[in-house]
């Protein structure tokens, strides 16, 4: 397998699988990650001098987090590693949010 996650001999199947993985990561997973980031960040960020930074900064950063989450799986040579990294972040954010809601 090459660094791009594709093989040179029977690369069709691997390439298609990598493309599908990238599309899923850059689409619904990126959206979920950005929304959960916005939900989890108020619970861990400091409120700052004005007492609102933990509420406001996640909303301001939401478009940037989403854009980064779209671009990362497209640019990385290893979609498997991107899936693992994004999955770990999602799990962490989910744990933070659930701890607040339950």
């Amino acid at each position, binding site marked *: 397998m090459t660094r791009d996650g594709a093989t040179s001999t029977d690369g069709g199947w691997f390439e298609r699988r990598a493309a599908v993985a990238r599309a899923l990561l850059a689409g619904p997973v990126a959206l979920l990650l950005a929304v959960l980031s916005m939900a989890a960040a108020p619970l861990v960020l400091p409120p700052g001098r004005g007492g*609102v*930074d933990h509420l*406001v900064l996640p909303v301001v950063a*939401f*478009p940037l987090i989403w*854009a980064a989450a779209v671009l990362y799986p497209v*640019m990385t040579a290893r979609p498997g590693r991107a899936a693992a990294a994004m999955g770990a972040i999602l799990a962490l954010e989910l744990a933070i949010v659930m701890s607040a809601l339950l």
Partner: protein
Amino acid sequence: MLSPSVTKRLIALHGWSGTVLSILLYVVMLTGAVIVFDDEILRWSRDAAPPQALIDRPIHADVAALAARVPPALRGEVLIAGHSSGHRRVAFTGRGPADAEPMTAEFLLDRDGAVVRRLDAPTDDLRRADPHMALERFIVDLHVQLHLPAPWGLYATGVLGLTMLVAAISGALIHRHLVRDAFLARRPGGRVASARDAHVLAGVWGLPFAALLAFTGAFLSFALSLGLPIVAMVAFGGDQRQALEAVLGAPRAADAAPGPLADLDAIVADAARRADAEPLAVTVEDYGARGAEVRVIHAPASGALTGATLVYDGATGGFVREHVLVGAAPSLGSALVSLAAPLHFGTFAGLLSRAVWAGLGAAMTYAVVSGVDLWLRRREGDQFWAVCRRAMVCVVWGLPFAMACAAVAFFATVGVGTPWTATPAGFLTGCALAVGWTCLARRGDAAALGRDLRAAAGAALLVLPLIRVAAGGAGWPDALWTRDPAVAGIDLAVALLGLWLLAPALRAAGEAAFAAARRSGAVQAARNRAKGASAPPD
């Protein structure tokens, strides 16, 4: 340096992200470039008198006289500001129970302080009660939420902002030579290479602006529609009111005992000196109570991006503090939030910055259109994509045509009071005509279709000032000398834009006429030669 395979994937992301939602993105960007001048459009819609500055005339006596004319229940908050009609606006809004619909009594005063209009209505219905706002509101709503129901319209425009942000970042990454591309010499002709050069030029120059607009636009769309409910859910048990109060501040518990209000004119003068900027509006909370609070809102001072709002004690007239948009004290969060709107709307340096924003917005609109055109031309051999290209041409030139039709319908009906229904009806009629022409035009050539629709948009814009005047609007001598400069200015801009849109059709018609004249001349010359040859020699 990106590897070829990463570059290939980024090009695919850039192309698809720009193309899939391109029609809606184009609608939002074109209307955004127009609505930068929403204040001028509103004044044009009214044949406004020249605007009054807040400090042109004292306000304290006006407010005191008007307060005596409204019931005490409506004195919860008073707003004193300019109005797009050129008059001074003084609005008294009641502050009843949280579940009751607030009511407003709005007065418009001329330069002598005489009341020219009083309007009593539920606060949310005030705009709807004013027929002159129909055109401006129609374009603003098209830009902000595509006329979709809340919150879906804001979600849609937020996703479009994100799409544009991804297209801008991927565009920056795939251009390895941004500086060289910024000075690219466009290859002549109508080839794909020439279209690519045009797209690269517009895209590279507008890249930072596109990223800025996309980011601030996505933030403005998502902040209240998605951000607030999510933050409220995790941090306030789903109570959005509590979340809003945590960010914007809880309602004041003011001393309700009756008491006189300090001199508003002295407060405004002091605020103008402290802020070193022009005061735009004054609000008085709990008017007539000892615990009244006065806020003076300013335009941005020279060199600043945002304007200051200064808070005064209503009873003593003493300066209290500078108001922070969010939070209890200035912080990173409040600075970022207060920058979003001025950077998105370009309002920080008056008409000049808004004109620059409109120009850059138009350039980015061109970058979107030229990018999609390039993408579709490369696939034109496929019947499906050829049809898509005709559809895109229909939208590109049909939208300005439909907007011009909406404006025509607005001016035709504003005098009879039905522009709130006529304006969207005019827009839909324009859309139907553009789609109908696209379906019926027999020529398969997308360029010819574009020229026809462009000419239609140009003709509609060109007649717009005539229709405004014919419908009872101010004539041009009146508009030039006694009205707000926005009236004649927008008339001129609309006419010039119409001529620019009509130019290719006029040029083609001229060339056709010239060719026909040459042909008829050649035929005549040939006949003459033939006559000369057949004539018997002397």
